[in-house]
């Protein structure tokens, strides 16, 4: 009887714990869903954030302390911009935060300018010991709310805006002054960091896998500022100007048909690209046109070169019908396509490579990889099949589920 009670208690405790874990997981997933719905990066007037930053809602960090409930997710640049500066670390960091306090909820999107001598940004506002930076703070819809200054983990609402109070208080909940930091001379001065973002606009015209012409359309310039703590050793530049430059590629075929922005070239293929239909007694096939992705290489002189690997013609993907159903076939096909694109990027990214080599390597790898993932699978880049072709679709996050 004692044993029975002991096991029962254990079982119920385990069930209770599992149940708690499930509730916690569900809450996190719910919060991630809310953040994902509310965050509208495309609306940001800061072009680098609008076009070059992506959020990761898969890992949501949740912390509760006193009456504050903090939910955080990380974000990063798709193409990492680096710069040289004596004052700042050479990369900007990004993060999303939602804070609930006393019945109010406020969401912030942070652009982090970390001082060179500071610890690296830990991707959380709750562990900022030894961290010094200026936080350029936006709402989730792109409104610039002002700046919060963090010096050795202590936050100050420099802009004095009420909306930033909750963020400042939340950071300071975790601030614990140490003997060491208190011995550092006070450096209360600040300076304004000006960022000029220049966007080069290109128009790319292609025919089949070949790029026919690359036309430079012009440049768009935007300016943003943030306030930074003046470094204690006095090496900060008052009104320092930092320059960022990103490229924007609009893709067209030779008939002037618009094929999409280059930014989508970094997204994984969607399973919705593949519409598998019967092709004879034992086969199913999907024809997909306009498959494209990009590889960022370098020229012999070290300048970044963007190669667009593009296939306007329909590519044949064939599978035996007895192996898997059309939905699973689409899932697997998208996955193999994604892995093969990545294989090309891994091999040739950051190297001096020609478009022809990228084209040949991608074709060869896709034809080899496809049958390894689905037994008997076939790929043909110039097939006589008469199955209607569907347009290539890229997803923002994953290939998706079509089953």
């Amino acid at each position: 009887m004692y044993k029975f009670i002991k096991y029962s208690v254990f079982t119920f405790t385990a069930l209770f714990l599992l149940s708690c874990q499930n509730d916690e997981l569900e809450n996190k997933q719910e919060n991630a869903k809310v953040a994902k719905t509310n965050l509208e990066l495309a609306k940001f007037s800061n072009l680098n954030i609008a076009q070059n930053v992506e959020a990761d809602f898969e890992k949501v960090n949740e912390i509760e302390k006193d009456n504050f409930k903090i939910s955080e997710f990380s974000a990063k640049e798709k193409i990492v911009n680096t710069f040289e500066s004596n004052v700042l670390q050479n990369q900007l960091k990004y993060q999303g935060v939602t804070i609930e306090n006393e019945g109010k909820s406020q969401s912030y999107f942070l652009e982090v300018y970390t001082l060179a001598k500071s610890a690296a940004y830990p991707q959380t506002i709750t562990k900022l010991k030894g961290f010094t930076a200026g936080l350029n703070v936006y709402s989730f819809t792109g409104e610039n709310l002002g700046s919060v200054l963090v010096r050795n983990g202590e936050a100050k609402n420099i802009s004095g805006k009420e909306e930033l109070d909750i963020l400042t208080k939340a950071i300071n909940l975790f601030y614990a002054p140490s003997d060491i930091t208190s011995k550092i001379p006070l450096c209360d001065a600040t300076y304004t960091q000006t960022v000029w973002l220049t966007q080069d606009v290109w128009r790319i015209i292609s025919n089949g896998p070949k790029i026919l012409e690359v036309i430079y359309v012009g440049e768009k310039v935007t300016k943003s500022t943030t306030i930074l703590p003046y470094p204690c050793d006095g090496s900060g530049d008052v009104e320092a100007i930092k320059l960022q430059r990103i490229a924007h590629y609009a893709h067209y075929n030779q008939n002037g048909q618009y094929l999409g922005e280059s930014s989508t070239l970094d997204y994984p293929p969607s399973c919705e690209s593949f519409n598998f239909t019967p092709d004879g007694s034992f086969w199913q096939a999907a024809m997909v046109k306009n498959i494209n992705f990009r590889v960022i290489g370098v020229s012999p002189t070290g300048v970044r070169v963007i190669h667009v690997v593009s296939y306007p013609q329909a590519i044949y993907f064939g599978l035996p019908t007895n192996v898997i159903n059309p939905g699973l076939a689409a899932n697997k096909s998208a996955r193999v396509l994604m892995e093969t694109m990545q294989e090309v990027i891994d091999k040739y990214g950051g190297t001096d490579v020609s478009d022809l080599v990228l084209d040949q390597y991608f074709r060869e790898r896709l034809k080899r990889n496809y049958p390894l993932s689905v037994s008997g699978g076939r790929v043909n880049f110039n097939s006589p099949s008469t199955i209607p072709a569907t347009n290539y679709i890229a997803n923002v996050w994953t290939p998706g589920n079509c089953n």
Partner: protein
Amino acid sequence: MNNMIDKVLKNLVYLLYPRNICAYKDKDEYFISDEYKRLAKLIADFDNENRVGVGKTFIEKFENDKTLKNFQDLSLFNIEDRCMTLHVTVIEGRQLYTISLFLSIILPYYVVDVRKNKIELYFSESEITNLENENTETRNIKELVSEISTVIETEFMYKKFPNELVNYVIEDISFQDSEFGYFTMYNAFFNNVIIEDES
């Protein structure tokens, strides 16, 4: 390489594939060429008249073999394969292999291709364990391939396509997605699948 076979096979290739016409860029010219029309007719005729019967006959030869009886006819003439395609999948040493038997419909030659699949995409670890436990096959892949070859050679008089010819490039021929410089003897008589070197 045997110079005589090289020449004989090349002559045959030139009867079925137009020289110096790019299959990508000059499709109109390609499709009206006598060589292509000859090839297309040969494939269509075989598909219409012989395909089901021949496939069945091959598979029946293995019907008493516990593993090879699972051969499936996956010939693909819709995209103008030049061969019959028979597949069987086997598990060995927790790995999943597909044995493909390609039988040319132009010449009495065959190729056996063994490919190790990404088993993790098909089965979980526990499923692999179950499959291994249920597997009563004692012959290894090499022995299975050897048995297939014996049956094909003795019963059907087919010969193994020479290894050195598989990747032999015919420079002035282009077909479907094989551009000039990439079209091989294997492509001419079988299909567009990439065959791994046996070495």
